[in-house]
């Protein structure tokens, strides 16, 4: 710890408003040389906004910023980089068709005029790689790299620009377990070279593992600051959400019933025509939550889309209650009693420009209660939507408000209300709480368990291990389109599931 030293970054009284929303309220924040400081908070707590201000992306409405003792006014990321501040966003900004070297030097090419001195650039890059153990072939084209490798390229890009204050926005969100371990090694190496790192996250265990100091944000304010050695996960959780986090939801023991969904030798092609799902078989029972763990991009999306009815399979069979399901037809999936929570709420799940009501009736609008001979019965529709809004506690001005005005948690509630309306036999839930805050997350979890207790079979596709362990009765792990392991919840260990997720099979 380096509290004795002068801070490299000092932000004083930072306030930032978006329209009516105060994203940052009078925040003081400082960063010391050689430390890894975690910025912890729920989604929407204001972490990313604060860092975007430091990175010159936004200008703050009030407050002062000092970098290395000097007051600065940052009007663009370029200004920030000049002063040694770099930021790596969740979504990378690399050119896929160019090589690692080209990506690293883009915009900061050495040499005069149009001549790029690639030789000296390469030497500098290799020096950096050796120093920090970020070994990637400089001539590999970026599209051939894995997500973890791409992140390394982003880090190299920042280091190449002599950045010594590195902001990382949720860097582990896209990484596999093994990649996270490597990232942490890199970050520690950087810190030991007296570079300072701000690590934005809402994952408690990670923050405990990597940081020296933790600053907790809630509703745009700093609510606490702790040395990592002097706090624990439980305290942090309380600070983050402002109340006791439920350690474990009440989950009744129910023996699973009859088989409601069975998938036999299912093979599915991805958009690029590759086999994304390879001869996958599993079954799902009444009163059961089957957790499908796995890092994103291992075929979960394609598998789910076949069950949703929006993608055609290329081989195998799917049965709902013993009767085969025709694929490639969403209407059929709905009719057969499959409730569907898509991974991509906004693009696939919702009609964002239409009203809450119009979204709620999407799947039931043609039932006799709501229309006769093609004419809507608005009385029944209004009753239905009012009931659902109340039942699911959807926070909206009224049923006619455009859906795009709702928050993420409420968007998911709209989908849930719509999908669970018909007492489904099977529920396919894809990343149902991704990007939601803890409150909304708990709500969704409670609803899923309620459905299970009612007798619905739930396939929970998630890369959040906490969620998988919290809800599942049985866990299967998907890796590169195959089911690589299966375990009962009582026998499963995080270590085992984690190994499976990174592709390590049992001997």
């Amino acid at each position, binding site marked *: 710890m380096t509290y004795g030293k002068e801070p490299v970054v000092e932000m004083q009284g930072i306030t930032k408003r978006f329209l009516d929303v105060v994203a940052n309220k009078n925040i003081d924040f400082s960063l010391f040389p050689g430390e890894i400081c975690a910025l912890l908070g729920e989604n929407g707590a204001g972490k990313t906004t604060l860092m975007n201000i430091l990175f010159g992306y936004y200008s703050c409405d009030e407050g002062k910023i000092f970098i290395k003792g000097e007051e600065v006014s940052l009007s663009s990321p370029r200004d920030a980089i000049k002063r040694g501040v770099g930021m790596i966003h969740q979504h990378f900004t690399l050119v896929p068709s160019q090589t690692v070297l080209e990506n690293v030097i883009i915009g900061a090419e050495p040499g005069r005029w149009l001549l790029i001195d690639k030789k000296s650039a390469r030497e500098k890059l290799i020096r950096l790689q050796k120093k920090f153990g970020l070994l990637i072939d400089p001539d590999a084209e970026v599209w051939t790299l894995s997500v973890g490798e791409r992140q390394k390229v982003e880090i190299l890009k920042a280091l190449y620009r002599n950045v010594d204050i590195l902001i990382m926005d949720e860097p582990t969100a896209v990484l596999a377990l093994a990649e996270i371990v490597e990232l942490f090694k890199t970050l520690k190496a950087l810190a030991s070279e007296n570079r300072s790192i701000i690590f934005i996250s809402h994952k408690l265990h990670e923050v405990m593992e990597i940081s020296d100091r933790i600053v907790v944000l809630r509703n745009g304010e700093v609510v606490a600051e702790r040395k990592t050695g002097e706090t624990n996960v439980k305290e942090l959780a309380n600070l983050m959400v402002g109340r006791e986090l439920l350690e474990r939801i009440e989950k009744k023991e129910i023996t699973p019933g009859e088989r409601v969904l069975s998938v036999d030798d299912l093979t599915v092609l991805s958009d690029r025509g590759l086999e994304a799902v390879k001869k996958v078989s599993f079954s799902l029972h009444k009163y059961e939550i089957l957790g499908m763990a796995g890092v994103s991009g291992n075929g979960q999306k394609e598998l789910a889309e076949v069950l949703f009815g929006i993608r055609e399979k290329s081989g195998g069979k799917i049965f709902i209650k013993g009767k085969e399901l025709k694929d490639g037809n969403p209407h059929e999936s709905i009719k057969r009693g499959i409730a569907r929570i898509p991974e991509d709420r906004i693009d696939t799940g919702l009609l964002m420009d239409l009203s809450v009501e119009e979204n709620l009736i999407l799947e039931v609008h043609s039932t006799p209660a709501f229309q006769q001979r*093609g004419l809507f019965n608005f009385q029944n529709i209004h009753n239905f939507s009012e009931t659902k809004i109340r039942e699911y506690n959807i926070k909206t001005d009224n049923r006619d408000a455009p859906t795009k005005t709702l928050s993420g948690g409420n968007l998911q509630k709209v989908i849930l209300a719509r999908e669970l309306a018909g007492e489904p036999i099977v529920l396919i839930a894809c990343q149902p709480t991704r990007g939601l805050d803890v409150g909304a997350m708990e709500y969704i979890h409670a609803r899923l368990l309620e459905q299970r207790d009612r007798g619905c079979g739930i396939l929970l596709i998630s890369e959040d291990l906490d969620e998988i362990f919290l809800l599942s009765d049985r866990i299967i792990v998907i890796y590169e389109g195959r089911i690589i392991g299966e375990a009962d919840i009582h026998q499963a260990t995080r270590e085992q599931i984690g190994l499976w997720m990174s592709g390590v099979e049992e001997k």
Partner: protein
Amino acid sequence: MSLSIVKRKPLPGWVKLLIPLGAILVALLFSAIPIVIARGALFKSYYYLFYGALGTRYNLLETFVKASPLILTGLSVSFAFRARFWNIGAEGQLLAGATVAAWIGIYFVGIPSFLLLPLTIIGGFVAGGFWAFVPAALKTKLKVDDVVSTLLLNYVMIHIMGTLLFGPMQQPGSSWPRSPAILDAAQYPVLIPRSRFHLGIPLALLAVLIIWFINDRTVFGYRSKAVGVNIRAANFGGINTNSVIICTALISGGLAGLAGVGEVCAIQYKLIMDISPGYGYTGIVIAMLGNLHPLGAMFSAFFLSIINVGAQTMSRMTGVPVYIVGVIEAVSLIIMLIFLLFTEYRLRWERK
């Protein structure tokens, strides 16, 4: 100082109603520039622009006559655009409707006369619908871009018409591309004496009501709106998006076809190459000005009709060329698009 564009808070609904009016007003103000350049006296020009369209009985009724095809093509385009079927082909669909209407009106001699007019109208509607069905089928089956296919089919239709008017449908003995006159029983009755106020005008207004009703009250209207807003989510929700697109195209094309029927059966009483001075393309302007709402289409069709009819008088009285109409049309469309942008975004000045 720097200027940036940022999202704004959602505006209340009534602002949306004022936007087209504001756009029209601003466009009329801007038109002062070319009027002055053309050496027209400003107030006199504006006066005669409106007097010429609304000031006398005959001119007022003429404004209605001119509005009726514009209402129908505007309605056609807005109905299609609402479902994101980018129908740039109302012109071709209008010509298809006109051609079939003329064919029925000229050659269906044997059938009872009270059946002839309904048959002509239905024939024109179906023909227009078919001409929009082709690109809709191409879009849904083969993913052919609808902007391109609807636009190009306009030219195909012009050439089909030309082939017919120089061939089988040409008036015997004539060397011009014109057909024989349609039968009397196929003409739209004139409803107000000493004018050209014909059956097509109430029909166009009825179409506005029907489309309004379809949009707001029916399952189909809901589905086509859903398809327009997010076709992926609509499909996910179990809506058969292909059939929605095809039905939308059929209705959209049919409405444009009706505009063609009106021109043949109430104005020209025959088919000629110049049956439409670009009503189909003007329909796009009208649809955008009317914010894709049927009532909006009706009002903007009347606006364009007013300046078109009024410009004749203005030109006679002040010497400002009638082409001023094109300027007002274009400027009002541009202003409308700018206004629409600013319903979602606003400018922000920032001091650095």
